[in-house]
């Protein structure tokens, strides 16, 4: 099955089925992960209780989880739209890297800018950098027909290395001993949403972006073109919808969202650019888009779930020593389950 058939299976299946298969998939994955915990000589019930407490136990933990979910929502929504245009976009890692880089660069250039304006400008710079990187991948895909999985992956490596390069050069903090930029001016920091916690306004931006992507997909001509493309390339061609333009636009849009996510990570979490801060987001975005049923609104629960899972897993590791990579195990297993369920329902729909 191709990404096209993947998109089609959702057009056919409606909204209930992806939700059911995602929930069932997560249940199966959590069960399998519990077996792993048991195998490592720990009590899975104790471990999962520690995870739950770490995820939602206190307002502080909820704040951490929502901050973690923020980049997942932004990148997941963009990647979900890409799936609609038959594009498997794993480029979020590089786009976040460059988005964060652009935001850092601008914040360090404009230390005198007022507090409300600077974060907005930095986020726009991040969006621009991400869009350029996503657009570059789309162009190589379209003009040279190199598969987007390879293009976006290779560009991830390059993007991350560009961040390393500038952190050892003009943006690096002298004498820090670690590849990072100096602390950004406080005017650029994202305001806190809840006093006394780490929760910043990024989550509002992310939720707004998810809703906007939903509206784009279902209420605009561009979204209509994406949906026709996803349903049938033949129909799209018949309707005069150019796959190339839609591909370029959707990749740039997803890149811009990832770039904003990068800016938010820098301005809201780290307050500086740090080497490796974007690691793993490319794959995470794909899994969240998939588990969210390739629909922007579905990304909302999927992204939040993994945000809470990750924050809970950190607490679980501290409390009972169960290592955090368990999150990736759960993520990978859920994906495989959802993919199999989607293929089954698509096959049934055909018969």
């Amino acid at each position, binding site marked *: *099955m191709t990404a096209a058939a993947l998109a089609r299976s959702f057009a056919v299946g409606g909204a209930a089925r992806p939700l059911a298969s995602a929930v069932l998939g997560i249940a199966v994955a959590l069960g399998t992960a519990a077996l792993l915990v048991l195998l490592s000589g720990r009590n899975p019930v104790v471990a999962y209780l520690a995870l739950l407490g770490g995820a939602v136990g206190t307002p502080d933990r909820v704040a951490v989880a929502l901050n973690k979910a923020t980049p997942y929502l932004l990148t997941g929504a963009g990647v979900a739209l890409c799936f609609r245009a038959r594009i498997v976009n794993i480029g979020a890692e590089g786009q976040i890297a460059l988005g964060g880089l652009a935001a850092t660069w601008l914040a360090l250039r404009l230390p005198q800018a007022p507090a409300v304006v600077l974060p907005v400008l930095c986020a726009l710079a991040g969006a621009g950098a991400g869009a350029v990187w996503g657009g570059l991948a789309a162009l*190589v895909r379209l003009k040279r027909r*190199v598969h987007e999985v390879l293009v976006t992956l290779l560009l991830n490596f390059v993007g991350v290395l560009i961040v390393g390069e500038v952190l050892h050069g003009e943006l690096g903090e002298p004498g820090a001993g670690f590849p990072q930029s100096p602390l950004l001016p406080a005017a650029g920091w994202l305001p806190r949403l809840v006093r006394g916690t780490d929760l910043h306004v990024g989550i509002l931006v992310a939720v707004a972006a998810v809703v906007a992507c939903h509206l784009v997909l279902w209420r605009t001509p561009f979204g209509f073109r994406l949906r026709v493309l996803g349903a049938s390339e033949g129909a799209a061609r018949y309707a005069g919808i150019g796959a190339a333009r839609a591909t370029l636009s959707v990749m740039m849009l997803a890149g811009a969202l990832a770039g904003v996510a990068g800016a938010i990570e820098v301005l809201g979490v780290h307050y500086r650019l740090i080497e490796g801060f974007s690691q793993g987001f490319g794959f995470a975005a794909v899994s969240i888009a998939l588990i969210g049923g390739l629909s922007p609104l579905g990304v909302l629960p999927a992204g939040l779930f993994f945000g809470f899972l990750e924050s809970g897993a950190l607490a679980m590791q501290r409390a009972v020593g169960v*290592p955090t*990579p368990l999150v*990736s195990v759960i993520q990978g297993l859920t994906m*495989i389950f959802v993919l199999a369920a989607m293929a089954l329902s698509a096959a049934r729909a055909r018969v």
Partner: protein
Amino acid sequence: MSVETALVELLAAAVRIATPLFFAALGGILSERAGVFAVGLEGMMLAGAFGGVLAGHLAGSAAAGLAASVAAGVLLALLVAVATVRFGADQMVTGLAVNILAVGLTSFLLRGFAARGEAATLRVPVLAAWPVPGLAEVPVLGVVLFRQPPLTYAAVVFGVLIAVFLARTRAGLTLRAVGENPAAAFAVGVEPARVRLAAVLACGALAGLGGAVLSLQQVGTFTDAMTNGRGYIALAAIIVGRWLPGGTLLGCLLFGAADALQLRVQSLRLPVSSYVIQMTPYVVALVVLAGLGRSARLPAALGTPFRRE
């Protein structure tokens, strides 16, 4: 060091670095010629690297390590095969899912048994070079080709075997038929699902060996996500080699040379930053793939699940 010895050293390093890529790429060729995208190569390699070090460490023998590498690669491949061949799941995304799973599983198992969840240190002796008597003394070629560790020779042997298998045997023809036109193959009595299952499992075994090259032959330990994109570079090498073992070998050597060059240039302390130099292999891969562009022809049924109607 003279320019000549530096060049010879560079080529020898290129061959060493190309070895794990070539193992994985050979597996990928079998899988993709049978019609199943091999995006899971990265995860299968990682599983192989981990299984090899774990078993090598526990059993204290390289043979046990190799066997476990193969087993770990096959196990992950089985998951791919069941999802894509049995259920018809999307091959690309299933591959990505398996890669995420492999990163999580290996990192978890590396830590899971320590009291505080810290990463265990598994060490195994690296496989030493086997100079081929006589040939190793040949100037230039001796150093480049005949003073390599054992798995490098094994990769060449597998390459020849698979080339012959695909081009000259009935089973190889069947495999290619399933990748080009599964319905026609089915019509003459071949069961495409069975052929694809076998191809994907063989892919897992070879990719597992590729992982073993990394952990048992090159490093002697396992670190998180140590494949670092090599499975994807192997996919690129397959495209460069147009799904043929010979051409794919050249692709692997090209990427191996780019990596070897990058490592050597870094040690020269040129005025260029090491980060820019580290980009070389990825930029080379992008440029080569873009240069090939439209000429690459995929196996016709690659990515399409086969269903009996």
